[in-house]
């Protein structure tokens, strides 16, 4: 399988604390790779470096064979990478539709257009509605994003990410704080998405992880201590000791 995104020898420290410790990891075409690990292991910091929000102290980020270490987060979006955040990041004062339409706008034509009303642009709205339908949020299109439930805001953030037309998705704990039905809907959505996207998923919900992942990487103290199929990870004694503990999965 071809590698679409890889971290090569990434290092990041905050003072004496090494948060990413010579980390290398490959994301393959159209797979869902789950990264699991205890709180503070450095998972979010890894996504921040992959997405360009944070510069590593050393190492490279390579996208389809091309070194993109010097590219900003905005530039990487145009190369087909999109992300969601552990703490929901949407435009709270915008309507649900406007949130997604603006992401469509980012990929279609110039935004230095000053006179025509954006609200009436079919090209933006139709594409946005399609993405909202994809995450089952089309009925809420006209609501203010801030007024949505937490779970629906997570769905919205996914729709925003999808609207940038990415082939790589970096998802940071999309299920965090969502309830049963909402979580189930998000899991079903990710199940659909992984057919057409390469996904790096950080998630604490082990049931979801083992249901969705093609491969799982286990991260502890800034290092990947094991990578493998869900069955391999389940059977790995080091993983059981370091992370899964007595939990039966």
């Amino acid at each position: 399988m071809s590698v679409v995104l890889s971290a090569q020898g990434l290092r990041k420290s905050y003072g004496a604390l090494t948060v990413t410790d010579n980390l290398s990891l490959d994301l393959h075409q159209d797979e869902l790779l789950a990264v699991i690990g205890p709180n503070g292991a450095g998972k979010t910091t890894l996504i921040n470096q992959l997405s360009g929000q944070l510069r590593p102290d050393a190492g490279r980020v390579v996208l389809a064979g091309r070194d993109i270490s010097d590219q900003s987060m905005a530039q990487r979006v145009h190369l087909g990478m999109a992300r969601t955040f552990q703490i929901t990041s949407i435009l709270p004062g915008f309507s649900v539709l406007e949130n997604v339409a603006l992401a469509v706008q980012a990929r279609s034509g110039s935004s230095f257009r000053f006179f025509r009303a954006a609200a009436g642009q079919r090209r933006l709205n139709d594409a946005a509605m399609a993405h909202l339908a994809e995450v089952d949020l089309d009925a809420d299109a006209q609501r203010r994003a801030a007024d949505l439930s937490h779970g629906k805001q997570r769905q919205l953030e996914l729709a925003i990410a999808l609207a940038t037309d990415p082939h790589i998705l970096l998802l940071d704990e999309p299920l965090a704080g969502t309830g049963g039905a909402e979580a189930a809907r998000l899991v079903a959505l990710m199940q659909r998405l992984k057919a057409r996207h390469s996904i790096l998923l950080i998630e604490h919900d082990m049931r979801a992880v083992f249901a969705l992942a093609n491969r799982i990487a286990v991260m502890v103290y800034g290092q990947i201590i094991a990578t493998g199929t869900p069955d391999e990870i389940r059977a790995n004694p080091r993983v059981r000791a370091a992370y899964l503990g007595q939990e039966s999965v």
Partner: protein
Amino acid sequence: MRLMGRDLVALLLFAGFAAVPLLANLLQDPFLLVIATRMLAFAIAAMGLDLVLGYGALVSFGHAAYLGIGAYAVTILMRLGVYDIGLHLLAGIAAAVVFAVGTGAVSLRTRGVYFIMITLAFSQMAYFFFVSFSALGGDDGASLPQRSTLFGHDLLENDLWLFWLALGLLIGLFLVCRAIVGSRFGRVLCGARENPQRMQAIGFVPFGYQLTAYVISGAITSIAGVLLANQAEFVSPALMNWHRSGELIVMVVLGGIGTLSGAIAGAVLALLLEETLAGFTQYWKLWFGLFLVGIVLFAPGGVQGLVARIKLQIGSRR
């Protein structure tokens, strides 16, 4: 085109302004036209400021500099023998654009309080530049030999024509600003106000959009400076004093930020209060300050907020 409550407020304000000449005639009070023209000029300036303050969440504490730039464009061109208002406006706008590009590019590298302070610092630099420019009257300022001409005619010597010109400019600029905030560009600007991190994560770099908005905003405010110079036939650095920048912010807040027509209402209200309170007491600024505190505490959202709440009340009673 979708009409909103804010457009209604703007329409009412424009209609109110249009009635002023009639009123001035009835009451035999030409001073009304003078006040109304000043209101129109400050409404333009406040609306220009609202573009960055309300839609970009960029609190510029230096917008008086653009009033001064517009006004001094008139003074300087007249010294050079150029009297046409079209050229005065063009020169004012061009100078404002240059100043805004330079200072904006630096200021926008900072955020929050630092942005406020650095815009203030730049406008004070402009202020002291003109204070020390003795050929233009220095600290005292200087009178204009006449008002600007319109197509070679001295129409604007008549307060009524100057008033109509100011009203025409305000309405035209309102329509321009209204289009801008609803455009693709306006959406990006507002998005960067809402959540810059999310904007980067969908591929936008806010800086260029914010700088462009800052430049447009400065240019609009400089137009108000050209009008004020003509209205007073006098230009001094006092126009670009930091008090003025503060007053412009007050106008926007008073009317309701991020609504455009609110800035117009705020300018009207602020000048009305100034005129009436100043007639009662020399301590009017104290009362004005108390009034402002009252607005912030009891009517957040300013005039627009009140209108919206009244509409809600009426709606719920039906």
